[in-house]
């Protein structure tokens, strides 16, 4: 299985990084690390352009991050008409890893603050789709 059920609308399926989805189904949001030079990647990469190695290992993103920025999208593109309003956000986690995702619908807009604590976790979407989202840390 690849990325065909990832997010509200997916645009391509095949990728060497497709194990990400298997981990996500199992409740984990994962990044990769190059075994040769130690650099971490999110979005995960299966190839390291610095040392030209494809020997990478998966590790789970755990712990609290913080909110860098966000926007409440009131006008969704084709395929997202029924999602709006939704909140896009950028979070920063351990080791400077940054993640782009939606803020959970459980968070009220009045409670959103730049710098607030976040955790990232898988979320089931309608029609057997899956993604990850930010919840309050």
């Amino acid at each position, binding site marked *: 299985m690849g*990325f065909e059920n*990832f*997010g*509200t*609308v*997916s*645009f*391509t399926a095949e*990728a060497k*990084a497709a194990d990400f989805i298997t981990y996500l189904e199992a409740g984990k949001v994962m990044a990769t690390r190059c075994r040769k030079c130690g650099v971490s990647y*999110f*979005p995960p990469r299966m190839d390291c352009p610095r040392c030209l190695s494809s020997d990478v290992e998966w590790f789970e993103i755990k712990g609290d991050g913080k909110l*860098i*920025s*966000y*926007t*409440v*999208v*009131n*006008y*969704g*593109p*084709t*395929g*997202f*008409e029924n*999602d*709006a309003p*939704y909140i*896009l*956000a*950028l979070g920063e986690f351990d080791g400077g890893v*940054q*993640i*782009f*995702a*939606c803020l959970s619908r459980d968070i009220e807009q009045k409670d959103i603050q*730049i*710098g607030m604590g976040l955790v990232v976790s898988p979320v089931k979407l309608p029609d057997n789709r899956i*993604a990850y989202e930010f919840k309050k840390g």
Partner: protein
Amino acid sequence: MEDVAIAGAGQSVFSRKCGVSIRELCFEAFKEAMEGLDITGDDIDASIICSAPEYDKQRSPAGLISEYLELTPKPSFYVETVCSSSSTGLRVAWSLVKAGLHRVVAVIGFQKMSELTSREAAERMGRGGDIIWESPFGLTMPAGYAMYARAHMAKYGTTEEQLAKVRVKNSHYGASNPKATYRKELSLDEILGSEVVTSPLKKFDCCANADGSSCIIVARGDVAKGITDVPIWIIGLGAATDTMTMSGRESLTGLRCAQEAGKQAYQMAGIGAQDIDVAEVHDCFTISEILAYEDLGFAKPGEGVGLIEEKQTYADGKMPVNVDGGLLSKGHPIGATGGSQIRTIVHQLRGQATEAQVKGAEIGLVHNIGGIGQYGNVTILRR
């Protein structure tokens, strides 16, 4: 090696719906660029066609447009850096002329966005991000810039009212631009009261999708002198990139691709920000113009809002910016925009600007950004 100049510059009227085909749209810009030059299409050695794909159905538009303008059998090819495609085209044209391969090159940018609905266009632009990792969340172009706006506000205290003042200025100049989509002055209250598209950006913080074309005739210096009375010299070029992903960005309070491109262009021209008499910056959103002030060194980081508060970026201010109305008034037909910005600066340096002429302008700058800060292009021109 010979210097390289712009001999002619033209654009179509930018509008929400042009009602003509893309080849006919390109003819309008070509006509304006060529009128008054002492050459014909036979003297154009190559054409570079610039647009973002998937707005119209035509594949490989370079072949179509070079045929319609009777530029065959000369070479023609396509370049793309989304919203900065025609600035990239200009960079390639400069290289071809500088290298001695061609004497005269036409850079033709176009976009016919009205072939799509507004939601479909938003989806295409969303796929201008990373389609595996970010587009599936519903990323849009305004949403990306809105996240920059929110981060700028959090770090520097920038307000929605300050952003709106950019639109007040640009709508003032756009009102007298016969090529602009929006020719109406907007008040601060109208802008602040418009509906929120993607917070904190409101409808009037955003430029509109549009149809339009632009054409720049680039020539070897000695050739340019022979075909136009006032060649405009290309003295600085900068180009840079940043990550496709939002998650790869080092900061959301400035565009690294613009900072880097600006540095390169200033260095090549041997000048600094203080030497610029007039600038066109990529105000796809009001926040984008504030970021440009800071990224180009017109103001220090976090102090860009001071320029608009003090009206220093009006035509009679210290650093006039977008005194043709900018993308906010003209509309933003993606592939045509860079060429339109170049055209405005060419007019300014020739003393022929119709909206607001900056007195005695000799050096002008164009800042043209592709995507949500993925591609940065800065061009410096001298009379």
